[in-house]
Structures are given as structure tokens and as C-alpha cells.
């Protein structure tokens, strides 16, 4: 596996907040930074501030398992995720920065006859939507990833898998830093340790934010705060259909390359890849109850590891190096909400739940369009807030219920 490049001392310019911007983005994670970059690059809007409560990309951007794929069931989902995947394929050149994007393929295992039927259906839907997809039987699964136990003796045997060869992983920190550097080069202000504490309103319109570093006016305030979206929305009287949960992940000690691809299993709640440095990176399902504490329960990790060891017997000799949690915002149909809010001057990007990392360039592209034009891009038009009034849900639970 390739080495990890050396980093310079400073990659982006930290700014003091000015009193007014055309666009203030709340949340300095991957989505917020990508949105700022594409606002400047695609729409010529560089009068942009990205406000971050903590340090840059220290929330879910630092806590996810970096899986990238676009093999979602519905056309609307395949549209935005495939747009994102195409951007990933050229992102390193676009940003002029290494992001270690590795298209090593993603396997989604099926463990029951119903999962087989769903998987085969999803492969067909993907092919119709222009997304690369294959159905593999257990022998082919073992050929792609020899360490998967495909014995029929398992409690939940592997009956097959969907395979997206163009899927893979990227180095999450480098993605954030690459976007931050490229955005500041185009004139965007990145302001860390600046927490939004309220909103400025005039005649119903949002005209700016109140922060721990003073008031900042804006023509448009663009929320991009993942698990804390409800906290911000409550300040402005906007009710959003989100529930915040802790989602945990863990890494093993550094190992020789043993795992050539990405394996996900919804039924036994584990997904795993091997990072460039050599650690196994594993995620689980969410903790069931609402939470804003960036840590989860040990029993969730225990079940995840039990599933991992059953599927990958060689993992029994690995050690857990560290575990952590992030706060994810789960929507009722497991699809994101990206668009207008019904409040002038306020846009929203949230509801990505457990799977927002893979969408980073795609949502940045579409959210920037939404902000610049005051109208959704056609790829995020299905993901409006008002689908929970009209009933036009994008129900991805069938395709992506647990692991994203």
C-alpha cells in the first residue's frame, strides 16, 4: 500500500471574521468546505465564510470510515451519489492535492434469500442508472476478497454480494484539507472556533448569525452541520425531521495488507476496509437512542467485532487500537435533505445520516448551486424538506438501512 505524504505546516489561511459576507456556511466539515469551494469555482462567489465551532473537519469528517460508492437503489440517490463518485475520480487533479482515492471496489454482502433478491434488484437498478454493478456468487466473493469466510456453516452465511468496482476509500483528512486549501486560494474565509449561538432576523428573513466571535451578516446562511442541525434549526424555529444518534467506528493496530477491498454487511452490522497505513477500519450501526455525546456503548462495538470475526476469521488476532463516535443526523427515509427551508436567506444541508462522506464533492457541487441560484440543482431537487409534506420520500432503507 502506498505511503502517506508529508504535510506542510499550513495548508489554508485562517481568517478573522468580517462583519458581512454574501454567504455564511455553518459547519466546517467536508460538506461545508466543498460547498465553499464550488461556490467560488463554479459560481464566482468567493465572498464566503465557513464557520466551524471546533477545529476544521474535526466532527464527522474526522470520524467516518471513508467508504465511497454510488450503488443506491433509487434513481434520485444514484443521481447525486454517482455525480459525486465522478467528481471523486478527478478530485485529486482538481484540488491539486493528494487525497489517496483508491478505487478498490465495494462488496455489499447478502446473507438471506431476501437480501439476495434485493441485491440482484439493486444491481439491475444500478445498471439502468449508469452505475457500475455486478452480482457475485460466494465463489466470486472469495475471489475478490479471499479473507471473507464464505463457508455455508456460518450462522449468517454469505449467499452472494453486489460489487461496485469503482467504489473505494479516500483519506478523509486530506479531502478536507484539500478543499480548505483550494477554497481559501479562491478567497473564501475559514473561521474556526466560531460557534453559532443564534440567528439575526429581519421581517422573517434570516440576515446573519450571532456567534461566539460576534455577529456576522449574510445574504444567505447555509446550514451544513450534520448531527447538530436540529440544534441550529431550533434557534430559528425551523422543525426538521431528524434524530441525532451516535455512530461508532474503530481501528485495529497496523497490519500487513490483508484486505484488498471494502466489505459491507447490513445483516450482521459491520463494514470494513484496510487503510493505506495498514489499520483495519470498521464501522457499526448507530446506537439506538438519541445522542449528542460523541461516544457510544461498548455492547455495540462488541456485536460489531463478533460479526467481523465471524466473517473474517483472520481478524481474531488483530487488536482494537481505538474506538470513537460521531453524531449523525438520521432522516425518516434515510435520504438527505438539501435545499431551501421556506425561510428566506436560510438553506439547509443535512440528513446524510451514516453516509455523508461519499457525497462530499457531489453535495458541495449541488448545494453551491442551490445557494447561488436560490433553487435546487436538479440532482438535489428530489431531496427537499417538503417531501415530508408531499410524501414523495426517497426511501433508501431497503438499500442502505444500516451501513452506508
Amino acid at each position, binding site marked *: 500500500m502506498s505511503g502517506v505524504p508529508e504535510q506542510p505546516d499550513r495548508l489554508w489561511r485562517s481568517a478573522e471574521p468580517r462583519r458581512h459576507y454574501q454567504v455564511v456556511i455553518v459547519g466546517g466539515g467536508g460538506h461545508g468546505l466543498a460547498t465553499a469551494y464550488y461556490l467560488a469555482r463554479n459560481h464566482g462567489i468567493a465572498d464566503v465564510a465557513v464557520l466551524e465551532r471546533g477545529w476544521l473537519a474535526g466532527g464527522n469528517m474526522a470520524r467516518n470510515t471513508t467508504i465511497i460508492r454510488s450503488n443506491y437503489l433509487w434513481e434520485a440517490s444514484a443521481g447525486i451519489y454517482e455525480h459525486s463518485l465522478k467528481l471523486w475520480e478527478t478530485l485529486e487533479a482538481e484540488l491539486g492535492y493528494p487525497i489517496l482515492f483508491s478505487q478498490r471496489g465495494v462488496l455489499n454482502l447478502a446473507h438471506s434469500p431476501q437480501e439476495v433478491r434485493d441485491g440482484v434488484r439493486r444491481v439491475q437498478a444500478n445498471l439502468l442508472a449508469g452505475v457500475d454493478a455486478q452480482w457475485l456468487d460466494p465463489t466470486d466473493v472469495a475471489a475478490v476478497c479471499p479473507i471473507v469466510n464464505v463457508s455455508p456453516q456460518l450462522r449468517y452465511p454469505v449467499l452472494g454480494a453486489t460489487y461496485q468496482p469503482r467504489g473505494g476509500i479516500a483519506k478523509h483528512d486530506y479531502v478536507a484539507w484539500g478543499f480548505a486549501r483550494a477554497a481559501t486560494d479562491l478567497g473564501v474565509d475559514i473561521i474556526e472556533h466560531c460557534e453559532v449561538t443564534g440567528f439575526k432576523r429581519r421581517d422573517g428573513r434570516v440576515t446573519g448569525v450571532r456567534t461566539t466571535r460576534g455577529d456576522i451578516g449574510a445574504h444567505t446562511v447555509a446550514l451544513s452541520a450534520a448531527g*447538530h442541525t*436540529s*440544534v441550529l434549526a*431550533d434557534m430559528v424555529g425551523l*422543525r*426538521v*425531521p*431528524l*434524530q*441525532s444518534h451516535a455512530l461508532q467506528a474503530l481501528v485495529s493496530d497496523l497490519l500487513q495488507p490483508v484486505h484488498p477491498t471494502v466489505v459491507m454487511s447490513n445483516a450482521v452490522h459491520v463494514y470494513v476496509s484496510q487503510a493505506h497505513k495498514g489499520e483495519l477500519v470498521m464501522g457499526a450501526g448507530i446506537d*439506538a*437512542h*438519541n*445522542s*449528542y*455525546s460523541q461516544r457510544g*456503548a*461498548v*455492547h455495540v462495538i462488541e456485536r460489531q467485532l463478533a460479526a467481523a470475526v465471524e466473517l473474517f476469521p483472520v481478524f481474531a488476532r488483530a487488536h482494537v487500537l481505538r474506538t470513537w463516535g460521531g453524531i449523525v443526523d438520521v432522516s*425518516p427515509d434515510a435520504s438527505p435533505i438539501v435545499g431551501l427551508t421556506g425561510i428566506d436567506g436560510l438553506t439547509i444541508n443535512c440528513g446524510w445520516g451514516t453516509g455523508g462522506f461519499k457525497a462530499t464533492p457531489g453535495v458541495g457541487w449541488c448545494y453551491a448551486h442551490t445557494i447561488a441560484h436560490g433553487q435546487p440543482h436538479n440532482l438535489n431537487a428530489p431531496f427537499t424538506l417538503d417531501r*415530508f*409534506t*408531499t*410524501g414523495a420520500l426517497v426511501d433508501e432503507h431497503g438499500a442502505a438501512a444500516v451501513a452506508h
Partner: protein
Amino acid sequence: MMLITCPWCGPRNETEFHYGGEAGVAYPTDPAALSDEEWGRFLFVRANPKGVLHERWSHSAGCRRWFSLHRDTVTHEVGPAR
């Protein structure tokens, strides 16, 4: 691992319980009178506070009783329904 007090069985591990989300969400008295927006809000929108949440739990691996409690979503401190 939280220690949750079932009103019937006493304090038990979190793993014995099933989560039920926000408590006190009443079914609309006249559902047909609701606008689409109000109905959508009833179906899909629940409280999601950073702080104390009044919520439902079921002692599903024990006596199977449903009950309410208050829990802080940051500290996970659990208290009885008030």
C-alpha cells in the same frame, strides 16, 4: 452501557431495553382535519434536543413493559418521568 430503571423490575442494563423515541406524542384527535403539513409533522418530526429528552423505553428482554423517562442526550444521565 446505561443503567436504566424499569418501574417494574428495577435497574437493568441498557441491552435489555428497546428504544421508543420521544414520549407524549399524541395521535391527532381529528386526523382528517389536519393539513398535509400538519400530518407530515405528526408522522416525521420528533424532538431532537441536545439536553433532556422525555422518551419511551420498553423492557423488551424483561417484563416487556413500556414506560417513560427523562434522559440527557449529552451526559446520558437518566431520571424518572416527571
